């Protein structure tokens, strides 16, 4: 019996290893400075509103933003890219993949990074929320296309960076909708229409870590309330649904979003 379970365990482990390996799209071609030994990086995502873990589709409005507006969450999808691990020796390691997280799909919460990283001390982690100008090209990502993740061309094209949706209680105590969708910012003024890239790239505060003799796991936690404050309090009554073509709303998300993530090593 013991042998049986052992065999099952080994089979399962191999199966898991194979399936993990299948997700690895790394075409590692920079063989300039091989550094050994190295460890794999697991990345997990968690989502909070204040101190509460987000639960989708609650019938009540359990979360509260900085203005005291109560809300629930019916959808949260977002995209981050250019995740970079900075070593104290000045060498940066950028993970190859982008991360498209949908909190209704647990399989999108955890990944094994495509790169092995060397042992040593890391000063921190940076990432780009959304895609930068180089990556935000119309239609080139199949998995995002089938998720209807494209950002409409009349407002700049490329891809959405986030869809955070739910219901809130408005100033008349009525139930209303919000759809915090983020992407390229369209500006219309006397000079005409221009499109401003709206991603941001930030170093996560206190994100240093040390890699020793084992693989590491990094847990990214998004506190969605940070979209709605610091430095500017967001009012759902002003920016509810329909904010995609709204330049000020798009820029405000960029302003407020820089502190949405914390990270810790598990």
């Amino acid at each position, binding site marked *: 019996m013991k*042998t049986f379970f052992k065999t099952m365990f080994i089979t399962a482990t191999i199966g898991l290893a194979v399936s993990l390996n299948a997700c690895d799209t790394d075409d590692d071609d920079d063989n300039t400075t091989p550094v050994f030994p190295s460890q794999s990086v697991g990345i997990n995502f968690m989502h909070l509103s204040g101190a509460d873990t987000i639960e989708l589709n609650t*019938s009540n409005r359990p979360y509260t933003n900085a203005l005291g507006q109560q809300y629930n969450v019916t959808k949260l999808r977002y995209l981050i890219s250019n995740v970079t691990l900075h070593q104290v020796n000045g060498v940066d390691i950028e993970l190859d993949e982008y991360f498209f997280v949908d909190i209704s799909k647990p399989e999108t919460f955890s990944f094994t990074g495509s790169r092995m990283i060397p042992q040593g001390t890391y000063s921190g982690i940076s990432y780009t929320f959304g895609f930068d100008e180089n990556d935000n090209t119309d239609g080139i990502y199949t998995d995002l296309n089938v998720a*209807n993740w494209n950002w*409409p061309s009349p407002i700049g094209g490329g891809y959405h960076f986030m869809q955070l949706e739910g219901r809130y209680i408005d100033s008349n105590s009525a139930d209303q*909708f919000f*759809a915090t969708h983020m992407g390229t910012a369209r500006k219309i003024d006397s000079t005409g229409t221009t499109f401003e890239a709206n991603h941001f790239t930030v170093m996560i505060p206190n994100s240093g870590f040390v890699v020793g003799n084992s693989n590491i796991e990094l847990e990214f936690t998004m506190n969605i309330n940070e979209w709605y404050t610091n430095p500017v309090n967001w009012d*759902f009554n002003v920016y*509810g649904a*329909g904010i995609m073509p709204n330049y000020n709303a798009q820029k405000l998300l960029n302003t407020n979003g820089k502190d949405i993530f914390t990270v810790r090593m598990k």
Partner: protein
Amino acid sequence: MRRDTSLIIVFIVFSSMLTLVACVDDDPIKPVHCENCPSENYPTPYSLKLPPLFASQTAPLNIPADNPLTVEGIALGKKLFFEKRLSINNTISCASCHQPENSFNDRGKSFSLGAIGQPGHINAMPLVNLIYADRFNWDGSANSLEEQALIPVAHPLEMMEKWVDVAIKIQADPVYVLEFGKAFPNESIDSTTITKALAQFERTLVSGNSPADNYFGAEVGIVPQGRVLTVEEIRGFEVFDDPDRGDCGHCHGGQYNPNWTDYTFRNNGLDLNPDSGLAKVTKQPFDVGKFKVPSLRNLKYTAPYMHDGRFNTLEEVVQFYMDGVEPNSTNISVDMFHRTGANGHTIALTLQEKSDLVAFLKALTDEEFVTNPNFRP
């Protein structure tokens, strides 16, 4: 070690029993094998030709590992699709309500008629590009095409037949015995192989030659297979794509998603108190009123529209999205509110924009698909 082996055998036998129990009620039938079939060379693997635009821009194909496409399986599936003996009184086949000349839906009927002329309860869906889908029926009640095909045969408002009796009828036909022997060597003729064959045929129903496909394909360097969009239809797409006007894309995608759906389930606000929809399957209160977001492909042939076929024309559909959405409908999709902000639900398309949009929607129709001789008996 011997004990381990016997345990494993017990385990395997037990799991097989579970699988059998999970099957439909055709177990009493003695398996029929094709005695003289040269099974060594059968079945022949089939390579499905996909439209060039789809190769780079759509989801991976959904083909179950235990039912790969084969030449013989597809041919058999097509024959069974037009087989009236699947119904209780041998009067209707799958094709009776899923007509190839109408993009495999029951054109003009809100509810199709069952084997004894009784009306059904939900609109028959067109069968297009299902090889990309992973959940079937308006309410998501089937997780594969094989699973889906089990339902209408036995449904009291549809074909009303017992699977055991279908198996008896098909097994009695020596031509079928030969064909099953080639398509599924050493397997029985039963609900499993019949639905496998039907699913194989349905996976070949790929449509990718509409004026919109040709227009958007040309933008990425694909040679058009037919006409491209007209000026009017291009204006219509601009309405479709514009978050201030149509904002159709949150549910139906756009030029980079040639299936024109994201396969999600949503409540589009048809009624204040909507039908149960997905909640019938999930039992979750937050799924009440949610129905499958349908592909917009071949709309010219698929009226009436919506899960209950309440709209006869695309003009009515567009008008509904302009001013007919019920904003307080249970679990209505937040995506119904982008165009006007949270507090409104009406949009004001001009007459010109409305007719342009309808023209574009019709240009998602693939005339080659509805006349394809490969899809006929």
